[in-house]
């Protein structure tokens, strides 16, 4: 049985995470060999996931850590006094 594009799209996230079973993975791989749309959808989704995960996208505000620990220091001293 050949799976269709919609079926592949429904499994893309699990496919990227390596969470589809062997039989489904084989079906998807076979489909990807001949479907340039699904290949492009998979590659672009994976690319988006990698870019979003980059530490440079979300950075803590400047001085966050220093203020965080200074406040903790004050509270710790209060709690222990």
């Amino acid at each position, binding site marked *: 049985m050949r799976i269709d594009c919609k079926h592949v799209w429904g499994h*893309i996230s699990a496919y990227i995470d390596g969470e589809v079973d062997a039989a489904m993975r084989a079906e998807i791989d076979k489909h990807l060999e001949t479907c340039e749309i699904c290949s492009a959808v998979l590659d672009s*989704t994976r690319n988006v996931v990698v*870019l*979003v995960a*980059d530490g*440079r996208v979300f950075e*803590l505000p400047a001085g966050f850590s220093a203020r965080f*620990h200074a406040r903790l220091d004050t509270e710790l001293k209060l709690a222990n006094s």
Partner: protein
Amino acid sequence: MTAPNPEFEADCIRRILAGEGELFHALISPCERAIYFMLMSLLRNEAEAEDAAQETAIKVYLNLKNFRGDSQFRTWVLSIARNEGLGRLRKAGTRREDSLDAETDEQTGDYTPAILTSWREVPSEALERQELGAMLRKAIEGLPEIYRNVVLLRDIEEMDVRETATALGITEGAVKVRLHRARALLQRELAPKLEGFAPRKKGLFGWFK
């Protein structure tokens, strides 16, 4: 994300509870980022998220004796951060009912992705361009909250499915479904815009930007 180290954490907690309070800084440091972005995702305001992050750390310290070790320390910390954020939203009267979240979750079918016939990889080096980072942040901030949290913990903080489910108080199945939809929404939103960030020809990336 800093990888959790259960032995270090357990040792720290024992010593802190025995009176070495100063060690709490080292214990909580690896969680700072995750605490802040969890709260930023809920509160959508930098100053308030920062204040709530500090309050969370204080609550963690004061409740440290209640940590049972049946989940990871960071997971437990993030549940406290989430409660802190939800408490603030309730106080401000801006929290939507949970049923609304559930409804959003149920009503959505599978998303149709942005249809492309080829894809040129956008390399991580392209993030040196400020507008790319801004575009990615805007797309994530534009996701419904139930999807934004899952992307934040799974893809940005690289937590596993189980840890994410525990921190958000949802099932592992819900984590997977929401992550799938979130990624589909991000692909649909971002793929057409990312084209301009791909190198024109292999090897010439540094040359054209």
